[in-house]
């Protein structure tokens, strides 16, 4: 048992404890949290003057699959040239030794969702994992956590322009996705019938992820920057009655009321962007605040490497600066993504029975005078700020 005391604690769910205590058991779970905890046999660590937040959760990342510091040899994010590749899983591309994992720990990120890239209309499965470890399977929290889809510029550039096959337009991309789910719906009916009758059924690996989506077991996570791409994503998902999250949602601020009315979940990022593409031309630092104001469930994300995940907290600071409330900013980096990924029973807040994933800062977050000093996953120190 480990008893953390002295620090101001933002549990995210529940009231702020100043100071508070966290009791962590030998399984790396939170045993108790409160103003005072009686644990006579516990090892005590005093963090007086420090601030503790839950480990941050990056809702959409490509760490381990995008060649951080490895050059071309490490690019394993888009399985090409087929545009519809439901059968792949980002898990099989991940290099846990890639420096981006250390970067995530440095940035206070203890949980990520790793998704395939956005080159394909259907890009494959993503999953969520912890950011410390050497065997990816041991780091997994939940697999899969979603099926990646993509609209807008990326799929039509890669396929239409480079490979000279469909999709070459936005409508072509939507048509391929529609086709895919149409096929999957028929597949689902046949598979379910075969199961009921106890008959042999031939598995189609490419359609299996769509089966999970249609069954409501995982959401469709659709890359969409431009406002009309976001609307198309929702149109498609409503046609098939499937759960979804909007990935990026860059133009969300232009259609925030529409998204709020839909009860949409948006994974917003990468923050601190330079609008590299036409579809990101309307990027604004105010996007998270505007979306939250209209009732959209906002989860911040780095899209690492497109925002270096080391600077996730700085992205939070900028979202906070531009109008997202302090509480909403913390939620957007912790409990909201935990809920979106379906892992809120384990992470996203500091509550009894949850994993003891937390970060220790030397002061309040979102200022340049305070920094993350330590990152803990399941009660174990996984990163400590080096002194330069």
């Amino acid at each position, binding site marked *: 048992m480990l008893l953390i005391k002295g620090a101001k604690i933002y549990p995210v769910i529940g009231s702020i404890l100043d100071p508070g205590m966290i009791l962590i058991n030998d399984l790396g779970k939170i045993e108790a949290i409160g103003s005072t905890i009686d644990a006579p046999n516990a090892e005590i660590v005093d963090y007086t003057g420090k601030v503790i937040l839950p480990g941050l959760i990056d809702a959409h990342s490509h760490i381990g699959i995008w060649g951080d510091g490895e*050059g071309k040899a490490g690019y394993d994010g888009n399985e090409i040239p087929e545009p519809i590749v439901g059968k792949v899983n980002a898990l099989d591309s991940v290099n846990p030794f890639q420096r981006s994992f250390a970067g995530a720990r440095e940035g206070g990120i203890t949980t990520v969702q790793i998704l395939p890239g956005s080159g394909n209309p259907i890009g494959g499965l993503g999953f969520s994992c912890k950011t410390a470890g050497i065997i990816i399977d041991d780091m997994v929290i939940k697999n899969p956590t979603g099926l990646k889809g993509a609209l807008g510029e990326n799929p039509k550039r890669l396929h239409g322009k480079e490979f000279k096959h469909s999709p070459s337009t936005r409508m072509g991309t939507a048509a391929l996705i529609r086709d895919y789910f149409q096929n999957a719906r028929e597949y689902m009916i046949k598979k379910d019938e075969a199961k009921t009758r106890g008959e042999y059924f031939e598995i189609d690996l490419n359609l299996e992820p769509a089966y999970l989506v249609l069954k409501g077991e995982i959401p469709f996570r659709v890359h969409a920057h431009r406002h009309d791409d976001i609307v198309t994503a929702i149109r498609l998902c409503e046609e098939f009655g499937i759960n979804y999250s909007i990935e990026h949602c860059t133009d969300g601020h232009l259609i925030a009321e529409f998204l709020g009315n839909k009860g949409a979940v948006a994974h917003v990022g990468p923050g*601190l962007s330079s*609008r590299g593409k036409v579809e990101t031309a309307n990027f604004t630092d105010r996007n998270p605040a505007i979306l939250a104001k209209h009732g959209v469930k906002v989860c911040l994300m780095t899209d*690492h490497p497109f925002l270096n995940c080391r600077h996730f907290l700085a992205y939070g600071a900028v979202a906070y*600066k531009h109008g997202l409330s302090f509480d909403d900013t913390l939620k957007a980096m912790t409990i909201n993504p935990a809920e979106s990924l379906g892992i809120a029973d384990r992470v996203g807040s500091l509550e009894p029975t949850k994993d003891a994933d937390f970060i220790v800062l030397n002061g309040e977050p979102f200022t340049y005078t305070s920094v993350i000093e330590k990152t803990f996953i399941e009660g174990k120190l996984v990163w400590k700020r080096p*002194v*330069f």
Partner: protein
Amino acid sequence: MLAIINARLETISHGIIEDGQILMEGGIIKALGTELEIPEDAQIINAEGRTVTPGIIEPHTHIGISEQGVGWEGNDTNESTNPITPWCQAIDGVNMLDDAFQDFREAGITTVNILPGSSNIIGGTSVAVKCKQTTIVDDVVILNPSGMKASLGENPKRPYAAKPKTPSTRMGSAALLREALIKARQYLEKQNQVKSEKDLPKFDKESEALIPVIKGEIPLRIHCHRADDIVTAIRICKEFDLQYTLEHVTDGYLLVDFLKENAGHYAIGPTMHYGSKVENKDRDFRTPVYLSQAEVDFTLTTDHPVVAGQYLILTAGLAVSWGMKRDAALKSITLTAAEHIGIQSRVGSLEVGKDADLVIWSDDPLDFTTFADITIIDGQIVFTREVE
């Protein structure tokens, strides 16, 4: 005439003036102090105790030549049809209507150096401009040419190795650079030796463009990330006794003594970016922190749009959070940046006679949640923040 009163003036060159005033006329700082007589006809801004600094200066950008949100049509960064193109001038590619200029004004950035990209061994001349709202770049030039871009390492060998054409290696890159410099030096010698105009060597656009470099009138601004590229850059510049600056200097932390010894001008960055290439795999804040500890002067850069330029101040704030002194960080993006570009007689500090480029900040300029409230260039208000 424009005056600011009740301001905390961070002059950068002459310390801090509390409760100060600053008077601007004809685009120039006419006076600053604590007991100025403000003429009756002056427009007065009451800073109400807020901090005023010189305008922020970005020493290495591709703003206007690598336009935001435009794509291929607005990308004029690299004339990568020939590895040696000293006759190209960045000014001829700058679109002052690039949205990024507005972002820069909003961020308190008043002057930028615009360089050609790094695909070529010699890419062309850079230009320093004010971030004023205009369609005519010539009207906002502060120094042209402000240098000659050169490049070592991965970038220049990549496009040509594929063609195939030299350079395909680092030694090939260095050889091409040397060859062009030798040719230009001989060309200049021939020009100096002839007695009548008819004996002048045949006009050679390449050598002609390099004469100011050979004469030491403009610096060679050399892109280098990896430690050995940094060393090669300095080796070649010493061979030809050139004025030079080093751009990026990612591995600088490995060469602290060497960089101190050579006392050059160093622009470090984009430090917030990820390890996008093998040559910058170890990118982090060690380089700025180690160099500042060794009291080596340098400036920070975002390499806009690699990291969006408006986050230059955030980058400086992060450098502080990693251990750089706060005042040194602010100096690095004002006065040292001006010195890097070679325009310190005009901008970079609040001094009588310098250009009236300054910013009124909502709080400590380096803090993550601080806004530029008012940005002034040449004594004119170019941005005022609307408070919601």
